[in-house]
């Protein structure tokens, strides 16, 4: 490790700990802990959403995928962004008007049913677990590459940091870590894109011309189809990307950190601009890496292409830029895992303990203790799982998390807000059908079974042809909710009237 890398690495650690110190002083109530007291502005929350959303997978993974596979790598960028139109048009404002801390709160504004809350908590915990293992394993491998630390040490450093932020600073610390990270990440992206464009004399047509001869793919590099060759498989992936975001618990939780629906709306707008610019810039990073680092060097450093962006930084700006980009990648991982711990802890402490076991009668002090114990528990569990998962190929876990979010959570969210007839039986069947169909289909997919040894968890022929099963599991989630509802006589028109009025007007009873 060069001294600059160590200095920047330590600077980020200190900066985030200072944030946590001040946040801890302001974290007095459960509301502060889970949602920063609802006191963030639209712009702050929008930038924090970007910080929560743009994971190392986005930053390093997509830049690498574009560098290696050209257009096909860009599919992710498009899906991840357009997903925010679903959030903006259909979900964000009603969610803010109905919910308190968690997704289950929002759904239970209609039902008051333990089984609905339990099912929502189960799907939240499943999504967060998969997402977190993927992030931590990725983090371990990445820090190993960037800083030359052992895998277990890398996972431990990230794990301890995320635990400190959440345990002491709750959502206030998490939000500010995410905001700082988003700013650093955008600065890094803009500097690198500028340097790439500078090398092409700001001639974009020239850039396209040059990358045609830069990779082993030749002119095919600029055409779709290098990575995704099954048409329905591609559509399935695109479906999971565009619908999944609106069901991701750690993203949805961010909407409770602002005071009302109008601020929730402006957060999405800010987030969409930041995230959109980010994903456009992934193109310059990917092309830049293909042209100046070279296909063989990228593959040699990491077969998944994850080192494309840091290697490009080395070529463009030497050790200093490499150190800066590595530090940004580290901050990126920290911000995302902190958000995940918090949403996992809220499902355990608020939904399962506070509302189901204590029936909503836990005192403020008990709730606070529960929240902190749950954060600690979730962190330790994630670290242990990540230590065991080192040699597993976990890349598919993030797209599985998106798939479960789209199949189990989104149908229930939409039905809760918009369907008068919807009932508890429908809510439970929708969530369980979506969750289990996604899990079962993935477990028999090419992500788990591959005839080539080492390519997936087990050796064998996959029974289900697509890596991402959204094209089947999302319709199943919606159908499960539909049939579960109409096969049960239960219906509460009065309650729907209340939910509908509150969801669309933001009306709240005055205490």
């Amino acid at each position, binding site marked *: 490790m060069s001294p600059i890398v160590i200095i920047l690495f330590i600077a980020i650690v200190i900066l985030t700990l200072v944030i946590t110190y001040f946040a801890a002083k302001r974290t007095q109530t459960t509301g502060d802990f889970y949602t920063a007291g609802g006191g963030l502005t639209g712009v702050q929350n929008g930038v924090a959403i970007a910080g929560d959303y743009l994971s190392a997978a986005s930053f390093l993974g997509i830049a690498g995928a574009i560098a290696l596979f050209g257009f096909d790598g860009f599919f992710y960028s498009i899906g991840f962004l357009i997903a*925010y139109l679903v959030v903006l048009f259909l979900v964000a404002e009603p969610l803010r008007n109905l919910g308190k801390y968690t997704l289950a709160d929002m759904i239970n504004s209609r039902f008051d049913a333990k089984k609905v809350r339990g099912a929502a908590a189960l799907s939240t915990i499943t999504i967060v677990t998969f997402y977190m293992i993927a992030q931590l394993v990725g983090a371990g491998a990445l820090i190993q590459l960037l800083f030359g630390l052992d895998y277990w040490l890398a996972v431990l450093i990230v794990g301890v940091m995320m635990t400190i932020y959440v345990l002491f600073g709750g959502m206030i610390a998490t939000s500010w870590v995410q905001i700082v990270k988003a700013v650093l990440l955008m600065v890094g992206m803009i500097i690198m894109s500028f340097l790439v464009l500078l090398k092409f004399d700001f001639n974009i047509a020239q850039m*396209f011309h040059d990358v045609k001869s830069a990779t082993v793919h030749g002119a095919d590099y600029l055409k779709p189809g290098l990575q995704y060759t099954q048409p329905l498989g591609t559509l399935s992936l695109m479906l999971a990307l565009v619908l999944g975001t609106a069901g991701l618990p750690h993203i949805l939780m961010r909407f409770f950190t602002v005071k009302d629906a109008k601020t929730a709306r402006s957060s999405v707008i800010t987030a969409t601009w930041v995230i959109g610019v980010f*994903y456009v810039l992934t193109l310059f990073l990917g092309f830049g890496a293909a042209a100046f680092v070279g296909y063989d060097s990228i593959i040699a450093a990491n077969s998944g292409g994850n080192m494309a962006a840091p290697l490009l930084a080395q070529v463009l700006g030497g050790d200093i830029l490499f150190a800066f980009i590595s530090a940004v990648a580290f901050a990126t991982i920290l911000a995302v895992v902190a958000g995940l711990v918090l949403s996992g802890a809220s499902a355990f402490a608020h939904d399962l303990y506070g*509302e189901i076991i204590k029936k*909503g009668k836990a005192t403020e002090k008990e709730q606070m203790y529960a929240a902190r114990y749950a954060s600690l528990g979730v962190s330790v569990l994630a670290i242990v799982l990540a230590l065991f998962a080192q040699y597993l190929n976990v890349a598919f876990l993030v797209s599985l998390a998106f798939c479960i979010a789209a199949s189990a959570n989104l149908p229930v969210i939409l039905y809760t807000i918009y369907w008068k007839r919807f009932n508890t039986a429908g809510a439970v069947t929708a969530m369980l059908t979506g969750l289990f169909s996604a899990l079962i289909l993935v477990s028999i997919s090419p992500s788990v079974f591959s005839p080539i040894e080492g390519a997936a968890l087990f050796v064998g022929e996959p029974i289900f042809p697509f890596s991402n099963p959204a094209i089947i599991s999302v319709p199943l989630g919606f159908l499960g909710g539909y049939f579960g509802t109409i096969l049960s006589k239960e219906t509460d028109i009065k309650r729907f009237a209340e939910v509908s009025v509150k969801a669309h007007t933001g009306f709240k009873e005055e205490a």
Partner: protein
Amino acid sequence: MAVKQEYNKARNNGKAVNFEKAANSNAFKKLLEDRKKFILPLTIFFLIFYFLLPILTSYTTFLNTPAIGDISWVWIFAISQFLMTWILCTIYVKKANTFDEQAEHIVEEIRKGGDIK
């Protein structure tokens, strides 16, 4: 459960809120109708526009024809997805301001406990 308690309290708080009356008021029905008329067509539009990209790249090759130099139509289409997202966001914010006014009016009327026009 906490939510249940709040729910009952709202009704027994001296001035119980009649949500059914509010939900059936013309003003609220108009708000829902206006939102639907605005959001539904745009949602259908952006989903079609979005899925058209993987459908066209998977089943046809005509997007591979050059548009500007070495930049083929598939890239133009991909970038237009970004532009569409930003344009729809901007349109939504403008339109949502009128929804806010309608919603504020309804909330005021509920608080007064009067008939919602």
